[in-house]
């Protein structure tokens, strides 16, 4: 079984705070990440697909196809934005856990439309010290 992973980067801002919590409660829960003015990260996203190797191209999926998809659906969408304003985070705090899941949801169906490879995982590096992975149970 072969998986292909490509890594993409975008800078974005977020605020970790629930609308239904007081500022003090958000501060207690999320610490400095609840700063109402926001803060930002250079996010790095690893997108992993799995599928049969095409006998002709020798590839699980064309790199340029995957790059175009992730550029459109992820990098252009989230790069240089405040993530809290994206509809994917309506009623949902844009923690890195939720970002990984949101990216998975944004990529799953369009990846399947490209060919025989299927999305199997998304890992989000929020800093060099933290990363969060979402994988469908296989």
């Amino acid at each position, binding site marked *: *079984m*072969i*998986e*292909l*992973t*490509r*890594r*993409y980067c975008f800078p974005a801002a977020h605020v970790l705070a629930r609308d239904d919590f007081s500022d003090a409660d958000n501060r207690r829960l999320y610490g400095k990440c609840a700063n109402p003015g926001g803060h930002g990260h250079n996010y790095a996203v690893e997108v992993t697909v799995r599928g049969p*190797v095409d006998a*002709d*191209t*020798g*590839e*699980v999926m064309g*790199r340029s196809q995957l790059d175009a998809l992730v550029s459109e659906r992820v990098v252009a969408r989230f790069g240089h934005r405040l993530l809290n304003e994206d509809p994917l985070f309506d009623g949902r705090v844009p923690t890195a856990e939720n970002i990984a899941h949101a990216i998975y949801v944004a990529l799953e169906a369009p990846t399947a439309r490209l060919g025989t490879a299927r999305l199997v995982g998304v890992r989000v590096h929020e800093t060099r010290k933290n990363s969060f992975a979402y994988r469908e149970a296989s």
Partner: protein
Amino acid sequence: MVTLSRAVEFSTSLRYAKAGLSDAENHARFGDRARQHGHNYRLELTVCGAVDPVTGMVTDLKDIQAVLDREVMDRFDHRDLNCDTPFFEKLVPSPENFVRVLRELLVAALPPEVRLARLRLQPDADTWVEWIEPEQAP
């Protein structure tokens, strides 16, 4: 059961070419990759095995390194995949095909106390393919 990973890095040239196609036809199919180019590949081998109660080790790392030197470094480092190895006469040397070649070579050469779990081949910092060995009954 404990896994042990060891990585090697090697510098290798290649070009994507299908036998019987002209240079122009290969370029039309594979783009810039049809020209001779090269990568600093990183290969991470992960094996698993039981910890020996006497040594406290799964295996002697020197033995793993010797296998990597013999099967990977000696064959591929500072070589050309198309001209200097017999593996890509009919296969394009994509990372997907290359990792399958490496898997066959390494499985046959590993010491008996370990078995292959994963093999990650990274042609550049933002791309990797991973062979995942199917789970075996213990």
